[in-house]
């Protein structure tokens, strides 16, 4: 027992969890607000899941915004039409996103590189047009409003109210912890290591006897599921779901977060990237209404000068060789 505790304390994930546990109390001192913390956690879930495809399998997907949106709309429809609650609508978000992810993955699993990117862009755009046109499910241009943050808990035992933003923060925090541990386990499992083998050399992995298309399909589906959960949480955070939620820029945002933080070199990159990105967005969008100009230039700056992401500064040697976990 003692050994386990000390192992947990030495684990870097533990300190990430501690940091986010106290974040809402630090935020007001640095000019932040709790909602920003909620957003960081939601996008961190999204980006961590996305990195299964991008960082670990090496597939440049530019379409995960679609699954984020599917999660949001599935939650909205479930909660407003069928079952009032939190867990089942969130689960619906995950299941639907995973389903559509699996469907798209059928088309793209045998591809890589440029073809993969082109196809994911095109498919995500298709989802966007559908969400724009399918009024009865997505509310079309108006979106769906009136999503409630209801109490969660075990009936009869305890109940936790999430309508207040600080409470909702800890609800999201709980899910973030679960997802981060889950993804950590996935990437360190034999399955995760196979994904990395595909990233380094797909032909070699194939020759050893791995069905690489299946592994890629699985990674894509899993990451879509995490995107769906994040999308559902995002709809809860905003009490609404709009078509904008699956706009192409969202796919670019999550990609940039992973890259900016250093998702190609470290497990923690996506978390850092989500935080830095959202803080920068808040900072610049208060300064100028033309935030997209700065945003665009910022992307170009990151790609040209720090393509390996912020965390690569701290591990110059290993950074060049890809993800740390692979070397342990």
């Amino acid at each position: 027992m003692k050994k386990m505790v000390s192992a947990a304390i030495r684990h870097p994930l533990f300190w990430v969890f501690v940091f986010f546990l106290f974040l809402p109390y630090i935020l007001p001192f640095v000019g932040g607000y709790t909602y920003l913390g909620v957003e960081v956690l939601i996008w961190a879930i999204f980006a961590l899941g996305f990195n299964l495809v991008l960082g670990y399998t090496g597939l440049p997907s530019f379409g995960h915004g679609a699954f984020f949106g599917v999660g949001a709309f599935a939650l909205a429809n479930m909660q407003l039409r069928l079952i009032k609650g939190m867990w089942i609508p969130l689960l619906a978000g995950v299941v639907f996103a995973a389903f559509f992810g699996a469907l798209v993955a059928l088309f793209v699993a045998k591809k890589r590189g440029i073809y993969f990117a082109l196809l994911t862009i095109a498919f995500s755009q298709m989802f966007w047009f559908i969400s724009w046109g399918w009024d009865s499910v997505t509310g079309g241009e108006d979106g769906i409003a009136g999503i409630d943050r209801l109490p969660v808990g075990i009936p009869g035992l305890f109940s936790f109210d999430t309508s207040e933003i600080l409470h909702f923060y800890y609800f999201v925090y709980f899910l973030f912890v679960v997802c981060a541990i889950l993804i950590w386990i996935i990437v360190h499992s034999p399955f995760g290591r196979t994904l990395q083998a595909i990233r380094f050399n797909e032909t070699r992995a194939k020759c050893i006897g791995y069905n690489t298309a299946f592994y890629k399909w699985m990674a894509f589906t899993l990451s879509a599921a995490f995107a769906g959960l994040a999308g559902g949480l995002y709809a809860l955070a905003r009490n609404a779901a709009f078509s904008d939620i699956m706009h192409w820029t969202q796919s670019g945002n999550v990609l940039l977060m992973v890259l900016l933080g250093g998702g190609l070199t470290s497990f923690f990159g996506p978390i850092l990237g989500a935080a830095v990105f959202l803080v920068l967005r808040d900072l610049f969008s208060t300064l100028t209404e033309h935030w997209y100009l700065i945003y665009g230039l910022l992307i170009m700056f990151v790609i040209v000068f720090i393509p390996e992401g912020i965390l690569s500064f701290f591990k110059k040697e290993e950074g060049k060789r890809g993800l740390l976990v692979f070397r342990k």
Partner: protein
Amino acid sequence: MPSFLEFQTQLLNGFVLGLLYALIALGFMLILGVMEVINFSHGILFAWGAYFALTLRPIVGFWPALLISPIFVGFMGLILEFAVRRSYGKDPLFGLLLTFGSAMALEEVIRIIWSATGYSIAAPKFVAGPIVFGPIFYSKYRLFLAALAALLIVLTWLFLEKTPYGAVIKAGASDSEMVMALGIDLKKMRWFVFGLGSALAGIAGVIAAPLWSIKPTMGLEAIMPAFVVVVIGGVGSFWGAVIGGLMVGIVTGVSVMFMPRTSQIVMYILMAIIVLIRPRGLMGEKSILE
């Protein structure tokens, strides 16, 4: 049920749109083939072409604007290339994100200069109004556009197939190391190709301007069909892009008549079907891009 006459008109509309899509996709594919960069900025350069036309046409007239605007856009491409060249030879992700960033920045610059409102611009006088073939009334400008787009496609083909420059570009797309070994300045060649591809986007923007509503987001409306066309036709295939463009244009045009709300989705469905049957597209060959 729509009448046969209506059907003919929509078919013709689709054909014209298809030629335009093919022209946009060709410039996009030129850059994709030679530099292995998915140029997300291609759409916004198309939009810049239209905006240049919007500003220049009242001052200098249609023909000079048709010449000058693509040159401006081409120069924008040449400048952009200085950033994009940092991504050559790396994961396609980097080039994609880089041009995604520049597309965003360039779109915002449009908003700053021309504001976010939409504009429309009339067809030039000599092709204004309809043309009459028996019972059919058809817009003269659309026919003019089709002819112009077809001419540009043929000129691009002649340039690539019949000139020594074209030979170098094609060689660069299949084996850039060998091209360099033969003593050709690869850096300069790529710079030039990026400028040329951008100029093609610009000229497509100028001729599309009277049909399209000119607004900052028009770039996205042009780049998405280009993606689909290239996937359908097969990466690296010239005639694949032309056939793909026509197919996308025609299914879009015809579906406007039957199910107007779904007209923007049908091209993706077409793409999905074709990718299922022919994973490399209609005329694509196995290449380093996979």
